[in-house]
């Protein structure tokens, strides 16, 4: 299903999504981030990209697994807290973030399906917005097999055509969200189709960061396992972890028990980070990834070697956040370039 939505009618569409939670990018504190849209409220899709990625809708930074209560010597009472969210529609998802989700889906499935992730994920409809222009000088979606109008992982793809949006349903879930406001949409004519194709083609010509031969990277990383390149490129790292927290595909987490009172508490999952020294440190003090270089190597290898070996695709969609937001300028594209040359 491909339709045309005039820009004034976007609000009407959102208004028809009653019963759903709607989120869209909002500009606050000098950054774009997803925020809930009030019923009948406006949404502004003039954003570059949100600072936080869309993964948090299925994999929030903090998730309570269960509550427990146990008096000393007594029986524990466990109450699972698998969420039961309302259907949630997220607008303005950039195609790089869209492509992150099927990668996260793989991680949270496999032999063990994660009920917390899937309870949220199944209720999620992602309405993407093609990037007519790169949203940052660090964009490299095309260098990792994506495109500024990739449909992968999205339920709907919108393309800005100036005074109107071209809106395409990618999945049945996406079609359903569009059908809610059937009247708001017009049929897409031949001229609209031609215009979308032109805009998409033009977007692919915009400058992006090149990373050379993607297929050669896994072998280059393998050959460089013991190379001094990692330590050299990581030497300014302060281990803040922003690269992984903002990443649309980083999924590492910690599990801890938090007390909420005497004899009771919660077992909680929180985002964790392979750049933190204690991420892999055994209680004995032994740490298999004991220095900055080993930890940078892990981040890059996970995305461009191990994930490829396990899932036949990179675990990076080229959003560029880890480069743009790194306080000390560690640049994954530059690292790949160096490793490729060594």
């Amino acid at each position: 299903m491909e339709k045309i939505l005039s820009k004034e009618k976007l609000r009407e569409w959102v208004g028809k999504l009653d019963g759903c939670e709607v989120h869209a990018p909002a500009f606050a504190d000098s950054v774009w981030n997803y925020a809930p849209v009030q019923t009948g409220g406006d949404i502004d899709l003039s954003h570059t990209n949100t600072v936080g990625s869309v993964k948090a809708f299925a994999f929030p930074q903090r998730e309570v697994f269960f509550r427990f209560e146990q008096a000393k010597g007594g029986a524990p009472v466990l109450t699972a807290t698998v969420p039961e969210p309302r259907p949630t529609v997220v607008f303005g998802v950039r195609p790089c973030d869209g492509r992150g989700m099927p990668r996260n889906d793989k991680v949270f499935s496999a032999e063990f399906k994660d009920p917390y992730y899937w309870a949220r994920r199944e209720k999620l409809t992602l309405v993407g917005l093609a990037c007519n222009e790169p949203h940052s000088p660090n964009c490299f979606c095309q260098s990792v097999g994506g495109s500024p109008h990739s449909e992968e992982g999205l339920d709907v793809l919108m393309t800005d055509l100036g005074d109107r949006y071209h809106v395409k349903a990618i999945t049945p879930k996406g079609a359903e969200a569009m059908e809610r406001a059937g009247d708001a949409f017009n049929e897409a004519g031949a001229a609209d189709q031609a215009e979308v194709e032109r805009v998409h083609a033009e977007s692919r010509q915009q400058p992006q960061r090149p990373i050379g031969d993607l297929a050669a990277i896994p072998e280059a990383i393998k050959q460089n396992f013991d190379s001094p390149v990692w330590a050299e490129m990581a030497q300014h790292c302060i281990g803040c972890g922003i690269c992984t927290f903002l990443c649309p595909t980083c999924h590492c987490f910690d599990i801890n028990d938090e007390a909420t009172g005497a004899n009771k508490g919660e077992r909680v999952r929180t985002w964790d980070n392979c750049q933190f020294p204690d991420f892999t440190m055994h209680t004995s003090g032994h740490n298999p990834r004991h220095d900055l270089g080993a930890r940078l190597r892990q981040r890059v290898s996970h995305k461009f070697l191990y994930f490829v070996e396990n899932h036949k695709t990179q675990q990076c969609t080229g959003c560029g956040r880890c480069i743009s937001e790194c306080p000390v300028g560690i640049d994954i594209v530059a690292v790949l370039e160096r490793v490729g040359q060594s």
Partner: protein
Amino acid sequence: MMDNIYLPQVGRIAGIEEETQGARAIKTFKVEFPNGDGFEHACGQCAMLSIFGRGESMISIASSPLVKDYKQFSIMKMGRVTTAFHDAQVGDLIGIRGPYGNHFPMADWKGKDLVFIGGGVGLAPIWPVIQTAVAQSSHYGKITVFYGARTSRDIMYKADFERLRGLADVQLSVDAPEQGWQGYTGFVPANLMDKAPSPDNAIAITCGPPIMIKFVIQNLQKLGFADEQIYTTIENKMKCGIGKCGRCNVGKDYVCVKGPVYSWAELKTLPQEY
């Protein structure tokens, strides 16, 4: 509804045995399933044990799968969770989920001699294999068990070793001379060379401190054991146990899923990140 992979079952501590004392003491816990559920496991698999309010720890299942009434765990007192276990009493109710990881390929070892080489707390992961092998001794050839501890007081499963003597060739060692000690004096790899078990139609299974494993493997190779004939287990920090939290990998493998059991032939192809 999907199974909740993070929600533990309730286990009851049915027995506590003090194995060794000192700063890093070891206690062995028998855990029953009072609600009747439980789970089956294979030799070498682990479980996530928890004390609610303290957290979870990955621990090898030290009892044989042939034992159905309970599971046994030997826990060294290290940090938060393991200390809470050392403070626990018989009758306490704990959390347990599993089983996790791969297992020793015992079905492939039918008719072969088995040589076990353990050191310190590193006996726990191979103990169920030893127990299963002696219980089904007609399936295997000669069974030899090398085990060494710092002193005779640090020897684990002392009572069980006495019983084992009748069923297998048991070769105990202590690191330094001790009055009245009947076994070998010296390190485990040296004892292994001293007795020099034959590699013909044999499998060697070793577990213990990394430094011991290193020399045991070197010595096994000197004795003529091929890399495919040598098995060991590895350990990395774990949180989820199910290949999701991302911390226990060695190269592309999450040890919690693809390990902890590896043949030396497999292990030597992986990066040294454990």
